[in-house]
């Protein structure tokens, strides 16, 4: 339930002078679930305090669509730690306005943690309100991004691509595209083409889930 006035909580956050203080103030502001908190929670993502960042992401995801604008306008081009948390929040919210940021992040960001969060997000965009045509177009672009991401040099990004594909493939896609997605998962499950065991395990699980 939104609290009446978050300004006291925001002041506490701004005056926090220790890692634990910042964590507690962030948790309290996130729990208030107030739209005015969004910009301040986005700021916390850049403070290099992982505990507080987790709490801030949870708060932003809980705010949902109200947090999308502050996230998109404050993406930090210089701090990939902060970018990873912001992309993670966008992924959790699943608002289609995040599509371009997610595609670009997976394809180009230098931070593996950013690419990883983007791959996850491309599988879970929430498109219920959109016309069928638009949904199909977004799914196809997401699939193309994930297929390209399967060649990422970092195992954790390929792992996230598997998770993204598993979530994307049950949607209505042209048969040929669905087949490409499944073939990519088979490749990520096979030792001949994937050298990281945990990625192969996750890809096998995804294939099991998709055929079950």
């Amino acid at each position, binding site marked *: 339930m939104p609290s009446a006035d978050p300004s006291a909580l925001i002041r506490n956050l701004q005056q926090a002078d220790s890692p634990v203080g910042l964590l507690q103030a962030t948790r309290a502001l996130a729990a208030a679930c107030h739209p005015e908190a969004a910009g301040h929670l986005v700021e916390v993502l850049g403070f290099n305090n992982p505990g507080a960042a987790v709490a801030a992401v949870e708060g932003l995801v809980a705010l949902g669509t109200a947090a999308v604008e502050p996230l998109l306008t404050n993406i930090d081009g210089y701090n990939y730690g902060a970018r990873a948390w912001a992309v993670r929040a966008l992924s959790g919210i699943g608002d289609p306005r995040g599509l371009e940021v997610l595609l670009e992040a997976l394809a180009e960001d230098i*931070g*593996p943690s950013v690419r990883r969060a983007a791959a996850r997000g491309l599988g879970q965009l929430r498109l219920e309100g959109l016309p069928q045509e638009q949904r199909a177009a977004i799914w196809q672009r997401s699939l193309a991004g994930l297929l390209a991401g399967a060649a990422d040099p970092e*195992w*954790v990004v390929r*792992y996230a691509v598997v998770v993204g594909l598993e979530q994307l493939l049950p949607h209505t896609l042209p048969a040929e595209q669905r087949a490409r997605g499944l073939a990519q998962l088979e490749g990520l499950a*096979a030792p001949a083409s994937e050298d990281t065991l945990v990625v192969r395990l996750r890809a096998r699980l995804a294939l099991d889930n998709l055929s079950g």
Partner: protein
Amino acid sequence: MVVAGDPSSSPVPGGAPITEEEALDRLRQTDDQSLQYYAAWWLGKMRSRHPDTLPLLCRALGQRLPRREAAGVEHNAVARNAARALGKLGQAEAVPALLESLEDDDDGLREAAARALGDLGAASAIAPLCRRLASGLAGAGAVRTDSSRLIEPCEAFLEALGEIGQAHPDVVAVIRPFIGHERPLIRSAACRALLQLTSDPRWGEQLVQLLEHPQLQVRRAALMDLGASGWRPALEPIRRTLAENSLKLIALRGLAEQLEPPSVPGAVDGAARAADSPHPDPATTAVLAVMDDLL
């Protein structure tokens, strides 16, 4: 284990892409140490299989000068990077040169050599590592008078003994005292090695306690140490730890891969194929589910 903020990023900022031939040429010349430094790192990172790679890296291990802290990239730094690269290449031919580096005056090189020998699972390193650690907390584990470093790079030595994995009672006895070291990173490394060698849950429980340490650096180290040991009961504590998701994911990868039974040598074709592309069991699936939530 000491960890940087984003463990998967390159340690050489702005390093432009180069080819294997260029990397070998850069390592061959000795006028510019910063070129050699980058080349050694690159060859390890790319797991170079070129026939010249191993001999050149071994030669770089011998590039020694008195250590000068303010000298920037110097010969000793090249040697340290060469040791790290040799660990990544996974070729046993590097072991004799690395054993020699274990006796070097530069503790930074001894540290890198020990880690590489651990990576290679070199049983011949057990005796020299134990010999250097045998003086315990008052000797190997004491703080130097001229810096904050310890007499021996104990963390790397302990981790190497755990990685090599021979649980001889003499080895365990050498490691044991270090669980009482004043520095939590050394305690973490000792618990990790003992957990790997003995599978005794009390060492896992001590590592789980370190996940709640007030210093982020200690929590990160305990995460990596639990991941290296693959200790399954750490799943939930790892999930709750206040640290970067990147590090939790690396730790959980260790748990997931540990849970999978290794493929049986000489197994019939069908079984071998199943081990190649295994269907995860319920315990592994539980680890994967936690990993999914951390992406």
